[in-house]
């Protein structure tokens, strides 16, 4: 049987169509919703990074906030204290995510299952406490502001003001598209399929001679980089860096987004982030108990749509959906 190394034409078309639709949305959406989608795009990158570890890697991490925060602080602190410009700062953020992913992975991957969950949760707690410990530099939970003037990007000879709503949207979309297509290709690659096979049955893969530890470590490192990219983007696009974004809540959120949209689907994270955002937004206009609605939605989903929205769609109607 010939194995496809490239995504199927249908998948590629679907993904390009989604990106095109999002591109058009910049000019078609009302201002408020465009702003919402800008945020959602950046957070969806975070979710996609998480999806790599959780959905495709099969590792339930409760500590991914630390990777997001590594990018956030990596970019934020270098801009705020060292006056770096955007590109090097962004690089610093991604580098921090990669480094953290490797270190945490090397340690945490020695455990599995529930212990892995707790270990990742704890490492994330340590990171969070570190941001508080160095309040002198980070201003802790109060946080730092990156003023509008520093948030300007040099690209292809032109200067872009990242605080401009349209530029911000397009920058977020650019990052999102890059990561989306990257995910699409990597899961079809040899590495990706090995990772999925490990998720399904790691013992068998070990017996087949695969280095399960190394594979998973790579997954965690890439995942760390992607989440950090989202964090760095969040800092430069929205201008705020604070400890709250490193707290456990931001480890739970990507889990929810991915589960809701469909774990191990490429577009699931985006869908989950988008839907969850609007559920909270609409619920909070009607009731102070909007988290109650979130809780109910979660339980409803988990009872009846366990594979998440796209996962259920894939299982029932569209088996080719990546």
């Amino acid at each position, binding site marked *: 049987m010939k194995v496809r190394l490239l995504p199927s034409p249908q998948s590629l078309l679907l993904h390009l169509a989604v990106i095109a639709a999002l591109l058009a949305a910049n000019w078609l959406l009302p201002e408020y919703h465009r702003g919402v989608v800008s945020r959602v795009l950046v957070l969806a990158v975070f979710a996609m990074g998480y999806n790599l570890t959780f959905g495709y890697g099969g590792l*339930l991490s409760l500590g991914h906030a630390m990777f997001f925060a590594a990018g956030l602080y990596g970019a934020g602190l270098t801009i705020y204290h060292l006056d770096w410009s955007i590109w090097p700062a962004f690089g610093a953020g991604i580098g921090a995510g990669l480094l953290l992913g490797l270190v945490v992975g090397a*340690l*945490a991957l*020695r*455990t*599995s*299952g*529930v*212990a892995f*969950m*707790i*270990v990742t*949760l*704890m*490492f994330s*707690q*340590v990171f969070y*406490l*570190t941001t*508080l*410990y160095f309040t002198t530099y980070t201003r802790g939970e109060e946080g730092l502001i990156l003023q509008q003037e520093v948030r300007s990007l040099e690209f292809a000879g032109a200067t872009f003001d990242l605080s401009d709503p349209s530029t911000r949207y397009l920058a977020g979309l650019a990052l999102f598209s890059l990561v989306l297509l990257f995910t699409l290709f990597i899961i079809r690659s040899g590495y990706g399929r090995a990772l999925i096979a490990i998720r399904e049955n790691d013992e068998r893969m070990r017996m087949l001679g695969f280095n399960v530890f190394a594979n998973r470590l790579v997954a965690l490192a890439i995942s760390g980089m992607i989440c950090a990219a989202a964090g760095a983007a969040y800092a430069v696009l929205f201008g705020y860096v604070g400890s709250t974004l490193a707290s*456990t809540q931001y480890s*739970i959120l990507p*889990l*929810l987004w991915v*589960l809701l949209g469909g774990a191990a689907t490429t577009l699931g994270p985006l869908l989950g982030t988008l839907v969850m955002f609007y559920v909270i937004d609409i619920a909070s206009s009607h009731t*102070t*108990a909007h*988290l*109650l609605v*979130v*809780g*109910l*939605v*979660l*339980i409803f*989903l*988990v*009872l009846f749509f*366990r594979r998440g929205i796209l996962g259920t769609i894939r299982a029932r109607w569209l088996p080719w959906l990546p």
Partner: protein
Amino acid sequence: MGFGPYLLLATLEGLVTAAVLSLMALGLSLVFGVMRVVNVAHGEFFMLGAVLAWYFSSLVVGDPAIGFLLALALSPLVVALIAWLSDRLVLSRLKYEPEATIVATIGLLYIIQQLALTYYGADSRPVEAPFTWRIQLPWFGYSGYKLAVIGASILLVGLTALLMMRSRIGLIMRATQYDSETAQTFGIPVRRVYSAVFALGAALAAIAAVLVVPIRQAHYLMGQEPLLLSFIVVIIGGLGSLRGTVVAAVLIGLSDGIISMFFSPTLAKMLATLLVALVLVFRPQGLFGTAAR
């Protein structure tokens, strides 16, 4: 204050933490061990226990001891009922699949927290201790009630151990934990055992909360921190080992107090958390658990 008295104070405080933690972690360990379920909402059962304790004690005027006893009796029962319902309505339908259960319990967490916010409010409210007795030591004063909490916890942990080791119910629970399929073939109603265990676990958390609420206060967000600590205790102690849970609770409760004597508190927390994580990394089965299944 000299080092000796300081250490004594830190030890006493550590014992109080350990006392409350053992009860709460015991509940989690039971649920974990028997049902293999991660209950992220366990902290909310704790919070509910405290909030209900406030409610029940506020119904009674006069001697605070009566209110407290009423709370001690009723609060765990109500929380157990809520837990039992959650299991029947949601968790059993998911057949306790690990990921689905986590998500469901996260949903449960939000629901319970929000309902507490709506009906109990955002304020932190005190509950009067059943008795006020200040012990004056040469170097510092200490609350007699806190010592009573340590004693009560030892008693309750002992009772739970007795229940698990000597009673028929305990035998059934342990059998289900050991091998649920075989247990089922012996006619043990596994589903019902699960519901009962879930309820019992929640009740233990609620009791811990009732004991601690005169020392701390009842606040709708109070379940978050104890949850983390409980997970730490259960994992360090070892999955499925009740003895391990208790030992770990004592160790962690004590060390938390003593480490913070020497380091700045935030740094102490960082080091403690890191230490726990590393213990888990290099000895994942914890202190008493059996090696990975």
